[in-house]
């Protein structure tokens, strides 16, 4: 039996989806286990986070991971799900490094 390993041509972005899920659950979803939160769960449509929540997550990314998000990146759509948040952070770091 072969296990298919993920093809990762580039270095893996250092913040994992699990880590983001862990933060979102701790901060916004009392009583929920991070394993229960699907990474494409729509956090906006279901009212888990609002514009204030976006700022909380941005601030966590800054303090915990040194990722600074600028005004245009702070749109709710960039925080729609755990997956989107990770992509937003990754883009910001790549942009900052460039």
């Amino acid at each position, binding site marked *: 039996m072969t296990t298919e390993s993920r093809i990762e041509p580039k270095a893996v972005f250092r913040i994992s989806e699990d880590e983001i899920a862990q933060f979102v659950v701790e901060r916004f979803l009392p009583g*929920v286990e991070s394993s229960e939160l699907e990474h494409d769960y729509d956090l906006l449509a279901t009212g888990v986070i609002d514009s204030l929540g976006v700022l909380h997550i941005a601030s966590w990314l800054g303090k915990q991971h040194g990722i600074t998000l600028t005004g245009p990146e702070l749109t709710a759509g960039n925080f729609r799900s755990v997956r989107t948040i990770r992509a937003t952070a990754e883009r910001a770091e790549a942009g900052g490094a460039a």
Partner: protein
Amino acid sequence: MTRSLVASFTARAAAHPGAPALIWEDRSVSYGDLYAMASRARTQVEEAAPDAGRPVGLLVRKSPEAVALVLGCLMAGRTFLLPSHELPEAPLKALYQQAGCAVVLGLADAPPVDRVVDPAGAPRGCEEYPPAAVVDDEAVTFMLTTSGSTGLPKVVPLSSGAVGRFTDWAAETFGITTGVAVLNYAPLNFDLCMLDVWTTLAYGGTVVLVDPGRGASAGYLRDLVADHAVSVVQGVPMLFQLLAEATAESGPLDTPEHVIFAGDSMPARVLAGVSTTFSKARWYNNYGCTETNNSFLHEVDQDRPLRTPLPIGRPLAGVRWLITGQDGRALTGPGQGELLVSTPFQSAGYVNAPNEKTFAPHPDGAPGLVYYRTGDMVTLHEDGALSVIGRADYLVKVRGFQVSTQSVEQILLDHPAVAEAAVIALPDPVAGHRLHARLRLTEAGSVNSLSLRRHCSERTVRAAIPSVIEMVTDPLPRTSTGKVDRNRIKACVLAAEEGPTRTPQP
């Protein structure tokens, strides 16, 4: 003059003394026996309260004797206050005092009862009883109380004419007459008894009295309906939920012809159960309150998809209504606002509370007619149908959106895994309010808050999705009238939130 309730009852008793008036714990009380008991009670009421001009207080639990005591008061032409016997002694005393009661009568010697009445007494043979005292239409007979979710209940006096007109309407609408059995689920002090107890007795039907002590037993309720061939079933959603549970195993009940949803809006899940509970009944959504009795009625079309909340339908004959918008003026077309009604069954106003704002004419209403402000926010749809959004008291602003915490509760209750739900609004410096939901699931762990959020997001605006969804395993606290005690839950949530902030921050 409208024929009074007691005059109608007396006529029925004279015409069919052997017909069953009440069913109570497998005992049947005939019209003749009930009339005799009521007449004995009347004599004792007149002895205990010789001043016919002053109200008497009653303190009774549901029983045939309690029904006889109420009828005895009516025969004596007395005004009487009928509060919930479950109220503590202090508020009871305050109510009797505020209503001006000369004496408090009961069937058992327990404070604050001053005199014990024994309607059963020793049978005195076939004695002749004097005819019931004649009272005019305007004279107050029943004084009921509101549920009193905050503070002391309000005392609602109802005139003889108002009660008589209501019983006429109810009997005609639901076919209540000799030989028709009607289930009475509510406690005797509830306004719903105007229909299921008092209309039935005025029109010669049989009241099947549910023992409130066994009111949560599904099998008991089903057996009552089946064994006594009940034709009319009126009750709160909980009754229909219990009957649905019981009939899921035994099959549908086939005697009920009219089922009437009252007291609270029917959750979708309960309504779905009704389909398989009764084999041939017509369904009605009833809208009313203690102050005005019924004002709107909607017959549910069972052939069309069921949608909740059910509309409240059309006004009853003689009912005038209007909806006031934010500027206080009547809406002239579709929209939302507070419902004001004026009914032929209406109270003249509270005995122990201010009335100026609640019972008053309206500049856009019929001249001189007194409208009652229901406190219910309603939507008037394009097709003229009305539906209730919720109590005006429960409307809050969340991030600029108007949200009814009651409608959020309803949405949560529509999820099959949710057994009980309370949604409370907490003050929030940014959002204005934020919503906190406390739920009990039918089975702990059967659903998580993420699924419930998704359920809400498919049914309402984002602002109406609670910021916190909390699950508990204990039943939610309830008030003495059986409603979820949101005030207590709110106090408890606020206390829990304030806790940590009191501890000194590093």
